[in-house]
């Protein structure tokens, strides 16, 4: 299958890219790693007339610490996330998640920006970014605005990103030293999108959970911030009864579709299982500092 015809643009700065996007309105689309967009173009589910390749824009690359935040450029690939020593030390959930996305070839092209901007409920990074309480930096010809990952997703393939906007970077508050995290993903086979997945980040003080965030992937039309489930574990030692309660609270906010990955009831139940597993792992890691 061959995609439909388009005009190819390869700007070398964000300003140039924004000018091309502004000139062509909804006929133009950014191209990052292409591993969501090109398959959609092959199926003619996407037929952009202008593709604005972000690959040559140096300002969009790289991972750095910036005060109390970690800043990840939009075109940073999943392979680069895996290799980053800064992320391995400060926010290991990003590496753990990136390693569960597709396969090595796809990870060498797929970008963090494309993964979070795409709006596909199957993408793994959006829930992880919600768990980390990340902020997305969006630029247009009119200027810059910042949208929290927890406010960004509005429906399947429907986000706060507006025509003419580019996501330039993701800003992540550096998680507390000694925090514990886990991303537990159930999939039918390696390389597959999640049947259900859960992200957990928590801190422990005096043997009890002091703070916790829980989010879910692919069990609704958007990633889900399971706020209630997170609150339920605070002050506990994540015992089985607490994990069960948290899993039930997480399941209650899901609305999965029945598809090739299972029935809605099965996928909802698996969201609970992934939540309990991720909680146990994150708690154990926080206690041992692993």
């Amino acid at each position, binding site marked *: 299958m061959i995609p439909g*015809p388009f005009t190819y643009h390869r700007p070398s700065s964000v300003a140039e890219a924004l000018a091309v996007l502004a000139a062509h309105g909804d006929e133009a689309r950014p191209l990052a790693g292409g591993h969501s967009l090109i*398959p959609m173009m092959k199926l003619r589910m996407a037929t952009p007339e202008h*593709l604005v390749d972000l690959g040559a824009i140096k300002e969009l690359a790289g991972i750095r610490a910036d005060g109390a935040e970690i800043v990840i450029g939009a075109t940073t690939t999943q*392979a680069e996330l895996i290799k980053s020593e800064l992320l391995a030390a400060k926010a290991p959930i990003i590496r753990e998640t990136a390693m569960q996305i597709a396969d090595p070839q796809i990870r*060498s092209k797929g970008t963090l920006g494309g993964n979070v901007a795409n709006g596909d409920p199957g993408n793994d990074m959006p829930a992880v970014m919600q768990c980390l309480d990340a902020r997305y930096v969006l630029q247009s010809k009119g200027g810059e605005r910042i949208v929290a990952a927890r406010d960004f997703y509005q429906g399947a393939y429907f986000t706060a990103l507006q025509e003419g906007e580019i996501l330039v970077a993701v800003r992540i508050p550096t998680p507390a030293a000694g925090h514990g995290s886990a991303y537990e993903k159930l999939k039918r086979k390696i390389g597959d999108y999640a049947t259900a997945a859960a992200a957990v980040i928590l801190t422990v003080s005096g043997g009890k959970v002091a703070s916790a965030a829980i989010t879910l992937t692919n069990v609704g039309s958007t990633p889900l911030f399971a706020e209630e489930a997170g609150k339920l574990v605070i002050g506990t030692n994540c015992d089985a009864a607490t994990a069960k309660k948290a899993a039930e609270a997480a399941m209650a906010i899901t609305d999965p579709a029945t598809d090739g990955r299972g029935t809605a009831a099965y996928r909802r139940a698996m969201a609970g299982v992934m939540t309990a597993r991720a909680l146990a792992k994150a708690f154990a890691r926080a206690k041992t500092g692993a």
Partner: protein
Amino acid sequence: MTDTIEQVAVAVTVNGKRVKRFVDPRTLLIHFLREEMNLTGSHIGCETSHCGACTVEMDGLSVKSCTVFAVQANDTEVNTVEGMANADGTLHALQEGFRQMHGLQCGFCTPGMLMRAKVLLAENPDPSEDEIRFGIAGNLCRCTGYQNIVKAIQYAADKLNGRAQKEAAE
């Protein structure tokens, strides 16, 4: 609309040779390699970016050339299975390993497997069996199962690391 799309110049180093062509931007790298360059070793095995039969090396990374536009390969170095054998014409350790360890049957997946394994060994010269399996997860084989493919990669790692190669167990 179609008629007005401009052809774009693509300059790419393929297997060490600099080539320049004008292409329709929608040309995928796999079609560029197979149809423009007559390098038909890289195969198309699926429509879903899953199978890895089209895997080539692009600036030292493994990519699925069915999901990369040729224009995105502009100014890069692309290596395909045609460029794999040693300069003196003898087989690369991986090619030898696939033969010795019965890592191929129909051979359709083999070029992609070889190209993926080459980058895997460049990234990790002495991978464990688990690391090999994780590293070739994006390459599907319909024929052999993965056991002999894993052994073939271990054979090549041994050879490249200057160790004796194991015999194929039958």
